[in-house]
């Protein structure tokens, strides 16, 4: 009994020591890079990565990727069904900067708390009743978000 509670106490101290350092600079944990939103934008690329617009375009249409088409219209004519839940994204690069687009992909609910749009790179510890397979994971990885930003910012 005593041994077990001692072990728990040691573990608790361990957690307390680890946690504060986890919220410091990128990348930590399972590769989640912390980000900071200022003025409704995330100016710094996630993990300092460079995006690829071609990969971003493919991700936007991929049902297992970003699946942007589920809700948004995009200039991807070879796909027949485009959703109407969100606003059309034609010309989004003329309306928003890369940093503004990045925040809207990462965590749209910081812009509109009532939005249906999932946060594709929000802090994975914030989920409610997340299924085991997805617990602690972001919907997209940092590279995928950067690819999408690179694609969308060029839609002018």
């Amino acid at each position: 009994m005593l041994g077990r509670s001692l072990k728990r106490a040691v573990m608790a101290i361990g957690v307390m020591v680890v946690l504060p350092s986890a919220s410091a600079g990128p990348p930590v944990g399972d590769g989640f890079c912390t980000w900071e939103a200022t003025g409704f934008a995330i100016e710094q690329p996630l993990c300092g990565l460079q995006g690829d617009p071609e990969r971003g375009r493919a991700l936007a249409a991929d049902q297992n990727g970003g699946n942007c088409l589920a809700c948004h219209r995009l200039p991807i004519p070879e796909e027949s069904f485009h959703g109407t839940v969100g606003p059309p994204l034609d010309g989004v690069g003329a309306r928003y900067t890369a940093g503004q687009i990045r925040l809207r992909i990462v965590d749209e609910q910081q812009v509109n708390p009532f939005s249906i749009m999932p946060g594709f790179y929000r802090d994975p510890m914030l989920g409610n009743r997340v299924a085991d397979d997805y617990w602690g994971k972001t919907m997209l990885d940092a590279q995928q978000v950067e690819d999408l930003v690179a694609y969308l910012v060029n839609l002018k």
Partner: protein
Amino acid sequence: MSRRRYGLLFALIMAMFVSPPIVGAGPVSGYAFLDESTQAMQDDEFENPGMMTVERGAELFHELREAEEYRCADCHGEDGAKLDPEAIARYPVFDPNLGGLVTLQKRLNYCWEIHLDRFPLMPGDRELTALETFVRHRARGVPVNIRTDGEMAPLLTEGEVLYNTRFGQLGMSCRHCHLQHQGQMLRGQRLSQGQSNGFPEYRLGSGRITSLQQRIGECFVSFRAEPFEPGSRELDLLELYVGSRGNGLPIETPAVRF
């Protein structure tokens, strides 16, 4: 700031308070979101694949098992002739004798256990869903009439909170699709109001009859959340709240949906 700008600002602020989030007023059945051929399939008793389950439920309703005294039909009439369609349309009900909120499946299961003296079925069991389908079909066309006052009021508030709670990795709530964005296209699928007047319903995608609680479970899976167990308090509360949103809609069981 010019006067015109103030006017615009004023109109915007008023719009936030005045205009309801729903396009058009009142509940609309999922039937209205179907194409004509699917509507025709539902309306034709011979074409509607859900009628197979109604027949399966009828079998169970009339079945006298070995060494048993009663069948459902002994109390409730052949083909459920003594079942009151108006009473069916009131489920889920509040019954203090049965522990409070009672869904139709729970009510059937009590009968199964207490009057037929059988082992109770698991919530969401195929036989229980078949019985529910048969019984609800008896009330086809009767408007849903779930009580919303008295003891139901606080339960409805709890149900509404669950309805508006974000779940899963996608962090979505029922409200987002079925209230905020009803009528919009999600890829090729039109979002309905998520009304429950057709349940249990036949799903063309899976080829199965599906109870409301199973359907809600599928939504949870799609937003990558841990589903609640059928028969859990949470799903009973959601069944109550979702049902009451559709008060006045005719019962369509078994509806045909995608």
